[in-house]
């Protein structure tokens, strides 16, 4: 059965993507409104599964790069995704079969639907992170040797930049610099790959999962059910800690916002203390000196009452939250994956242990 994404689905998807954003990924508001406006104007967007993409067909990512805080002020022209797409077609010499999202995060989960609606191109139900990560090369294609480039950047003024770099780290560096000159954020076309590669390496079903999480949260609220229990069921997640934020430290160095939040336990966790360390996204959650969950598994704070996801920017004293841990995609749990996004990749001298194993020992405590 063919499936289409309309305004209601975008609303749910943006909310759910914020949960999978693991504390980062930006505020979904502007990205959501842009996708909704394109869909209202041009119609719903077909969502296809990776299996529906022919092995030899080409697909590309449509994403945003740079500062979400700038996009909140300087809103897109709405033409950038098409400009990157047209340049990409010139570069590749073929029309992509479909487009897809790089990550599940407040902004990037909805960006592909602008292009999808405007050009009537299907969006593939997959992404390359299954969550949000801070850097361009932290993808499941990346750890399998597929390059993120060529990449095309566009700004709202009509400028485009095509980057062919020697590797994805250089792509990241060059694209960041260009993005700064072009006004703080750009829209990109990147991660061109074949249908075969998509089937082998992408994480299937992430947009659908985002939508499902968002819908679950919304419905649980409407029916006055426990929204957090509902989210945990959908994400196979674990309730790590319940408490009140009592301290937040933040430092900005370049593109990262690093910091930690201290959460004092309530109810069953009364008397205990949880520390969340974040670098844009939440990286490690520790209680009483023991890790409860670490990257690449997802750590997310949810409002205790409403289940609304609380990003690292929104953490402040007094917030009453439930911290949940959700298993990442298995590809991240390989040595290749952990080398890029494991605790050590973010500077912590800590071995990765899957959240479900940590939760099992925690439960037997």
């Amino acid at each position: 059965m063919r499936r289409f994404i309309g305004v209601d689905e975008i609303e749910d998807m943006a909310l759910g993507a914020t949960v999978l954003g693991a504390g980062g990924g930006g505020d979904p508001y502007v990205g959501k409104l842009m996708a909704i406006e394109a869909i209202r104007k041009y119609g719903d967007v077909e969502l296809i599964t990776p299996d529906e993409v022919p092995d030899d067909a080409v697909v590309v990512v449509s994403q945003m790069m740079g500062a979400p805080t700038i996009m909140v002020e300087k809103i897109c022209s709405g033409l950038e995704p098409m400009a990157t797409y047209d340049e990409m077609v010139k570069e590749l010499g073929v029309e992509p079969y479909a487009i897809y999202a790089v990550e599940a995060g407040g902004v990037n989960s909805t960006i592909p639907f602008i292009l999808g609606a405007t050009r009537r191109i299907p969006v593939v139900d997959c992404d390359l992170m299954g969550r949000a990560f801070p850097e361009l090369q932290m993808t499941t294609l990346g750890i399998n040797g597929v390059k993120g480039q060529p990449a095309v950047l566009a700004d709202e003024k009509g400028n485009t930049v095509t980057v062919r770099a020697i590797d994805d780290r250089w792509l990241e560096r060059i694209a960041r610099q260009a993005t700064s000159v072009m006004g703080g954020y750009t829209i990109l076309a990147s991660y061109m790959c074949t249908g075969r590669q998509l089937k082998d390496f992408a994480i299937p079903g992430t947009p659908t999962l985002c939508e499902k999480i968002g819908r679950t949260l919304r419905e649980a609220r409407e029916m006055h059910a426990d929204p957090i229990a509902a989210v945990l069921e959908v994400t196979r997640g674990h309730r790590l800690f319940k408490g009140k934020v009592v301290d937040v430290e933040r430092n900005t160095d370049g593109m990262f916002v690093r910091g930690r939040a201290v959460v004092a336990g309530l109810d069953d966790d009364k008397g205990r203390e949880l520390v969340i360390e974040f670098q844009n996204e939440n990286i490690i959650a520790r209680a009483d000196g023991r890790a409860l969950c670490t990257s690449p598994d997802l750590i997310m704070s949810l409002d205790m009452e409403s289940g609304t996801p609380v990003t690292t920017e929104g953490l402040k004293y007094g917030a009453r939250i439930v911290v949940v841990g959700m298993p990442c995609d298995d590809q991240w749990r390989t040595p290749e994956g952990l080398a890029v996004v494991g605790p050590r990749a973010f500077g912590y001298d800590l071995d990765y242990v899957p959240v479900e194993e940590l939760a099992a020992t925690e439960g037997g405590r």
Partner: protein
Amino acid sequence: MAEEKRTWRLGIDVGGTNTDAVIIDGDLNLVASTKSPTTEDVMGGIKAAMHEVVSQIGLEAAANIGFAMLGTTHCTNAIVERRRLNKVAALRIGAPATTAISCMADWPEELKSAMRVRDFLVHGGHEFDGREINALIEDEIREVARVVREEGFESVAVTSVFSPVSDAHERRAVEVLRAELGEEFPISVSSEIGSLGFLERENASILNAALVDVARTTADSFEEALAAEGIVDVAVYLGQNDGTLMSVDYAKRYPIFTIACGPTNSIRGASFLTQEKDAIVVDIGGTTTDVGVLSHGFPRESMVAVEIGDVRTNFRMPDLVSVGLGGGSIVRRAEDGSVTVGPDSVGFRVTRDALVFGGDVVTATDIVAARGLAPEVGDASLVSSLDADLVERGYAEIVRIIEDAVDAMKTSAGDVKVVLVGGGSILAPEALEGASAVLRPPHFGVANAIGSAIAQVSGQIAKVFSLSETPRAQAIEESKRRACDEAIAAGADPATVEVIEVEDIPMAYLGDALCIRVKAVGDLML
């Protein structure tokens, strides 16, 4: 015998349940006060309260009144009821940016149609670092002015991309519009209203533009009501939501700043009555409790987007948490035996419906009366038969709601002083968890009207500077000067204006950009 200088002040504050009025003499002593039910048309309640306090002191003494201050909900009501709103031309300066989201895209459909707004897009706007996205094209703005004139728009809202960083295009656009439409034409300029966050600032500017007539008629009918009481030739001010006053002329330009002035009046009144400069203020009314923070003598501001009538905005608003607890909150026992208090309330009918007043509804007031904590309220014998367990659990619930709300407003874990005001503050106990002291000043019931009466005049500026272009010290000096100028423009005595707050906030991701917020305050020009 009237004094030579008319230094008395009449302060009025319109709340959801009651309209309060006070008169304060030249030495800031309370000489009259009253509470009167808020009426649906608002002005009726204002007139009744005003008449009552003037009667209390007599006409002769009323001749001492030289100032009249009104904190009112007219603007909020106009938005909520979608009435009397001006026909607005919304001018967006940003092309080629911003076209992905149209003007008012996220507004409730029926408010949008009630607003009669037409949007215009022209080239211009700035990058985060102050570079131009596009040059301003003045002929495009003249064309907008032509349509405004020919189609009878009553007010213009101008919003340019990154105007908190550079307001050059907004200022130039205003000059061009004024040349075409006349000096008096109402123009709302976004950089004077909101902060970073384009859609929210544009929304706030459009709402402001739509409220111009509401502010005008409110001020006019307040002056008429004063005249009807024989109070003429007084300086009239409207309360704004940072706890200070603005002159009528200023209020006509920035009507949106009157929204939520009530809670800030309470906070300022609490400060005046206790002489505290830093505390958490708990204002318990008939239906809701507003908890705000007194910081350096003024209400702390919110840093996040605030919804007004279901529209996201980002103009400065007091940082408040409102919970559904008041003197009239209805108390119920749930099936599992637990007891709930509110959020529904009998409101101002508490003096008729509550048990302690001979009614048949169990309210929060009855719970405290049954505990013997409110000896002056009603007839205690009427609550003596209340189930003891219901009373204990209900009281614990009341205390929990207040303590949670106080905690939610703290920024760190240390204990703070708590000041209780409002007619419902008899609900709160003598001690609260997380409070180093609980103060309940005299006249706590009319602290909001007192806050309105004693208010000063402020000016405020929030601007983003690029440190590579403007050194920090120079940026702060410039901001201080502009904040003082704003205060004087709003009606402050230049000799008394002082800077009370300087805050600089580095902007994440924005390189060397620094947002500087300065607030200056002065006494009323006597």
